[in-house]
């Protein structure tokens, strides 16, 4: 009974939206009810960002908008005009993995991998957020918006710890 299609057919209300994703500008014609998650996946082919619950309850769709982690399933694409969007595809710089990506590899911080891009986006935002303390409890709390059905939480925490100490080692002050 409910219409679950993600990208409804274009109608007269279609909007032209300019999205800046991973530093690249895209002009899209979108129905107003298209969420950022669907625009990224279905229109820009950036399928690293995952759709889990589609209701803000799992974190698989986490991306950065102006440097802050958000759930792209609950954000209208039209509301992102002029904002800087970063997806997991934009984490690596100049061919080198982001420290968080490298740490997830090193610490085996995933099993099936479905939650992983969202986890890494939250972790990367966390490392850049000086307002969050660095006890295990505070990191877990800051990461609680990302569920992992495989239960890789222990290694995810270890990966964040590794990325954090590397950032410090490089003199990065995040």
């Amino acid at each position, binding site marked *: 009974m409910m219409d679950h299609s993600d990208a409804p057919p274009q109608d007269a*209300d279609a909007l032209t939206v300019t999205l800046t994703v991973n530093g690249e500008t895209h002009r899209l014609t979108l129905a107003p009810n298209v969420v950022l998650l669907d625009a990224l996946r279905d229109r820009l082919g950036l399928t690293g960002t995952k759709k889990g619950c589609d209701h803000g309850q799992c974190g698989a769709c986490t991306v950065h908008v102006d440097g802050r982690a958000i759930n792209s399933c609950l954000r*209208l694409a039209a509301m992102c005009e002029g904002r800087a969007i970063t997806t997991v595809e934009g984490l690596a710089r100049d061919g080198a993995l982001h420290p968080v990506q490298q740490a997830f590899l090193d610490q085996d911080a995933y099993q099936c991998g479905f939650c992983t891009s969202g986890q890494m986006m939250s972790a990367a935002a966390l490392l850049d957020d000086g307002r969050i303390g660095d006890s295990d409890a505070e990191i877990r709390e800051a990461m609680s918006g990302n569920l992992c059905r495989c239960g890789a939480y222990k290694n995810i925490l270890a990966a964040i710890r590794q990325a954090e100490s590397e950032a410090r080692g490089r003199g990065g002050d995040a």
Partner: protein
Amino acid sequence: MRPFAFDTATDSGAAIAIHGGDDRRAYIAGGTTLIDLVKLDVMRPAALIDVSRLPLAEVERLDDGRLRIGAAVTNSELAHHPLVREHYPLLAQAILAGASTQIRNMATTAGNVMQRTRCPYYRDAAAACNRREPGSGCDALHGINRMHAVLGVSEQCIATHPSDMCVALAALGATLTLEGPEGRREIAFNDFHRLPAEHPEIEHELAPGELITHVTLDTPLVGGGAAYLKLRDRASYEFALASAGAVVALEGEVISDVRLALGGVATKPWRAVEAERALDGQPAVASSFEVAADAALQDAVPREHNAFKIPLARQAIVRALRDATARAGTTTTTRGNQG
């Protein structure tokens, strides 16, 4: 998702003009309530007006010592704001006890005040729900009502108000500034949300097309200690089964001023006035807190699956009062010009 038209407003006047008091139109800020409920076909706006870019993103100290918060300030910015951390720790604690990092980064002050219940029957467009579909009945009364309210309920609706932030606002005291086609007005926060009574579909005092522009906190209690305690099924990213927010000020061993509000157990953000009255001038000890907790819950109405909330809320109240007392300043000095 149902289609809708979309507009962006860059100032309040424009937003209100676009809305025009047409109740098929809705403001959208963080979208964390609205888009969720549009996807569930529970909210069916014909048009959305983006108010997240309005110049209402400031937190500022007024000359009279109150704190004025712009409607578009995100929950994250507010919880981490230095003035909030220093003078209103209860608000910071309550916000950070809610939702997740991502949702707090999106959610706004006004949107949080306006968030809808998480009642599963309200969220299921096929269920009977007086709040969503007036007169259709209430499937929660004899359904799975473990999460539902025990205070402020009616035979029409027993839905819990889910906000943590609003528990702090209820305790701290606040004023909402509303702007609409008829001009600007103010309303006390504790008069804003309505009890369900005979009309659960009328949730608040906002007139069609009115915009919340600011939430202004009362001056903080001098030397008050604050504690927000949230009890829930998992340690994070979960709504409250019962929560209590307390601010306690002491003169010696005696409670000179106290604010107490409850979440997770009531149909609106619940200022526990009877408990405050019971505590006034009493020694700040466990037995006083227990008497106050009983006073707060004396009118509680349990249903089949939520009777456990009464002892749970009782414990939350006792512990929040105890923790707030432990943090209260011991000095009984200068009033006025506080921090």
